C-alpha cells in the first residue's frame, strides 16, 4: 500500500452522480454500490458499455435511463469489443480534428462473471491484446443471476446454483472457479486487480490507478447477490469483508503481468467456513456427509493464498 494515490471522501460526495437513483437493481445488490464507487473515482468524462445482465436490464428500461453519462449495451458477450470500437472512433475522430484534442474520455466496459469468465472471455482477451485504452470491470456475483442463478465458471466449488444444485448425490458445483484475475494478468497488460466494495478506499484507489495507465486494465470485483447467495440484503458489505478476511477473495493487484501486490492481509485469517455460513448457497456443505468437501475447499484457499504471498515476495 505504498501508492500515493489518495481517495478524498470530501471530493467524492460533491461529485455528480453518474448512475442516478431510480434503477431497478435489488436491495442489497453489490453492483450499484460498486459502479458508483468506480464512477466517483474518475475525474474525466466517461463512456460506458455494459454487457447484457442485471446491471443492464435494471438501468435502461425504455423510455427511462439511470445513466447520466453516455452508455451503450449491444449484446451479452461483447462489452469489451463494443467499447474498443468506441475507443477506436475516439482516436480516429480526434486525429482528424473532429473532436477537441484536449478532450479526455475514460472508456469503461462492465460485465458480470458470465459475460467475463464465460461467453465474453475471448472478446476481452482480444481487446486486451489489441491494447485499447479502457477499463474492463467484472462485477462478479459468481453465477448467472439475471437469468435465475445458473452456474458460471466463476461459481465456486460446492456452491448451489440452479444448474449445479446440491442434490442427494452431487453436493453443488463440482468444478473449481476459473482463475480469471490471474488469466487477465497473464495478458501482460499494465494493470489488473481484485477488489471488493466494503473496502471502498482500496477499490477506488485501484480505479484511479487503472484509468491512469496507458493501455488496458481489468478489475475483478466481488459483488454479492442476496437472491443468489441467499443472504439478508443488509449483510452485503459484511459478507465481502469476510470474503477478504478468510482470504477467499484476496484484495491484490498485478502490474505489467508480473508485479504482485497483496493490498490486504488479515491480521487473523478466518476459516473459510465462516464466510460460507453467511450464505444459504453453501448450507449443504455443513452436513456431516460433506465435511470432506469443506476441508478440500479450505485447503485450496490456503494454497492459493500462499501462492499469492509467494508471488508478491518474488516480484518485490
Amino acid at each position, binding site marked *: 500500500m505504498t501508492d500515493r494515490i489518495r481517495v478524498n471522501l470530501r471530493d467524492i460526495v460533491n461529485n455528480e452522480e453518474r448512475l442516478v437513483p431510480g434503477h431497478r437493481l435489488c436491495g442489497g445488490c453489490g453492483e450499484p454500490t460498486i459502479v458508483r464507487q468506480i464512477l466517483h473515482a474518475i475525474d474525466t468524462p466517461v463512456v460506458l458499455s455494459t454487457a447484457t445482465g442485471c446491471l443492464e436490464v435494471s438501468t435502461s428500461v425504455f423510455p427511462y435511463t439511470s445513466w447520466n453519462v*453516455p*452508455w451503450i449495451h*449491444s449484446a451479452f458477450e*461483447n462489452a469489451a469489443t463494443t467499447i474498443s470500437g*468506441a475507443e*477506436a472512433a475516439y482516436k*480516429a475522430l480526434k486525429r482528424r480534428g473532429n473532436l477537441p484534442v484536449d478532450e479526455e474520455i475514460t472508456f469503461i466496459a462492465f460485465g458480470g462473471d458470465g459475460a467475463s469468465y464465460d461467453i465474453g472471455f475471448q472478446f476481452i482477451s482480444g481487446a486486451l491484446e489489441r491494447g485499447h485504452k479502457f477499463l474492463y470491470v467484472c462485477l462478479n456475483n459468481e453465477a448467472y443471476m439475471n437469468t435465475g442463478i445458473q452456474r458460471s465458471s466463476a461459481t465456486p466449488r460446492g456452491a448451489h446454483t440452479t444448474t449445479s444444485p446440491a442434490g442427494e448425490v452431487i453436493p453443488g458445483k463440482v468444478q473449481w472457479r476459473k482463475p480469471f484475475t490471474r488469466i487477465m494478468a497473464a495478458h501482460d497488460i499494465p494493470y489488473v486487480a481484485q477488489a471488493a466494495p466494503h473496502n471502498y478506499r482500496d477499490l477506488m484507489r485501484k480505479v484511479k490507478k487503472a484509468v491512469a495507465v496507458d493501455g488496458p486494465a481489468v478489475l475483478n470485483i466481488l459483488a454479492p447477490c442476496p437472491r443468489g447467495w441467499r443472504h439478508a440484503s443488509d449483510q452485503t458489505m459484511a459478507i465481502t469483508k469476510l470474503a477478504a478476511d478468510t482470504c477467499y477473495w484476496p484484495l491484490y493487484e498485478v502490474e505489467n503481468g508480473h508485479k504482485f501486490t497483496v493490498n490486504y492481509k488479515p491480521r487473523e485469517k478466518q476459516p473459510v467456513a465462516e464466510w460460507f455460513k453467511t450464505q444459504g448457497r453453501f448450507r449443504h456443505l455443513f452436513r456431516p456427509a460433506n465435511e470432506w468437501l469443506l476441508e478440500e475447499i479450505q485447503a485450496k484457499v490456503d494454497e492459493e493464498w500462499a501462492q499469492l504471498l509467494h508471488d508478491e515476495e518474488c516480484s518485490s
Partner: protein
Amino acid sequence: MTSNRSRTFVLGEKKEMVESTYLALDGANAVSHAMRQINPDVVAAYPITPQTAVVQNFSQFVADGTVDTEFVPVESEHAAMSACIGASAAGARVMTATSANGLALMWEMLYIASGMRLPIVLTVVNRALSSPLNIHCDHSDSMGARDAGWLQLYAETGQEAYDNTIQALRIAEDSDLLLPVMSCQDGFITGHGVERVGILPDQTVQDFVGQYVANYSLLDVENPVTMGAWDFTDYYFEHKRQQSQAMNESMPIVEAVSAEYEKLSGRPQPIIDTFAMDDAEVAVIVLSSAAGTTRSVVRDLRNKGVKAGVVKPRLFRPFPAQRIVDAIKNCKAVAVLDRAISFGSPDGMGPLFLDVTSALYNAGACDVPVIDFIFGLGGRDMTPPMVESVYDQLMQIRDTGDRGDIVRYVGLRG
C-alpha cells in the same frame, strides 16, 4: 460534437461526369480501393477466404499511411461487427468485410446494428456456408441474412462491386434512413477475377461521400445518450415497426444516390438491370455474376430469333417488387436462378424465387408461369450450355403451357 445536424448530403445536386482511371483489378481489390478512397474513420475486420484480399489490402493502406483510418484487427467476425457497432455508436464512419461463416458468426450483431440504426457498410464476398466446408461462391451466406434489417446490393462485376461500395455508404448514412448496408459480390468469380475497373479520382469519391456527422454519439459527453436500451412489451413492437417502415421507405433514397452516382461516373446504376426485356417471351431473373453469362446466351438466342431476356436486380433488400413485376408481367415463361436454397420452403425453393413469386401474386399477376432453378452451389460453374438449357425449358413451357416441376436444378450431376 454537435448533436444536431442538417442533412449531410444534398441529393440531386448537379454534378458533372468525371473520367475514371482504368486499372486491372480483381473484385476484392476494387472494393479495397473504394474503401481507400472513402477513408473511413474505423474499419474493424477479420480475414476469411475469399474476402481476405479486402482486409489485406486495406491493412497495407493503413501501414503505408495511404489512409488514416483506425484499423481494429479483431479476433473474430463477431468481434468485427461488435467493434463496428461501438465505433458507429460513437459517431464514426465505419466499414467492414466478410464472407460465409464469418457472416454467420456476425449474425447476432447484424440484427443489433440494424435495430440500433447504425449506418455500417459491410462488403460481402459471397461464399458457401459449411457444412461440408467449401470456400467457393454461392449466396447461402448473405441470403441467410436477408431478414436481418440490412439493405443488400449484389454486384455482377468488380466494377459494380466498386461502384456499389461507394453508393452503399451514402445510402446507409442518409439521415432519413440510417440503416446498415451489405454490398455483395461473388467469391472468386468476381472477387478473384481480374478485370478492367474504372476508378474515380480520390477527391471525387471524397466529395461524393461527404462528411458524416452522426445525430447522436457516445462521444458527445455533454449530451449523454443511452443506446441499446431494454424494451419491454410496451415499446419493442413499435420500434420494430419503425425499423421496417424505414426499410420500406428506403427505395427513393437508393434511387437518388444511384442517379447521382450514375451522373458522376457515367456508368448506369439501375435498381434492376433489364436486357432485351421489351418484347421478351422467355426471361431469366438472376443476381450477380451469372447475369453476364446469361446475357451472352440471350444475345445468341436473339440472333436465332428467340425472344429471350434477362433481369438482374442490383438491389435485393429492399426488394424491388414492382419493378420486377413490370419487367416480366408480359412474359410467357420466366425462370428465377437461385444460388441458395431456403431449406424447408415448398420444394426447397430459393430465396429470390420466393420473393419474385410473392411479388407477382401481390400484384395480381399470377398468370406468368415462373419456375426456379437452383444453380452454382459451392462454386459450381454456370456455363453457357447450362443457361441455354434453362431457356430451352422455358421455351417448352411457353409452347405447351405446362409449367411442370417448379423447382429444378441446373449443373447438377445425376
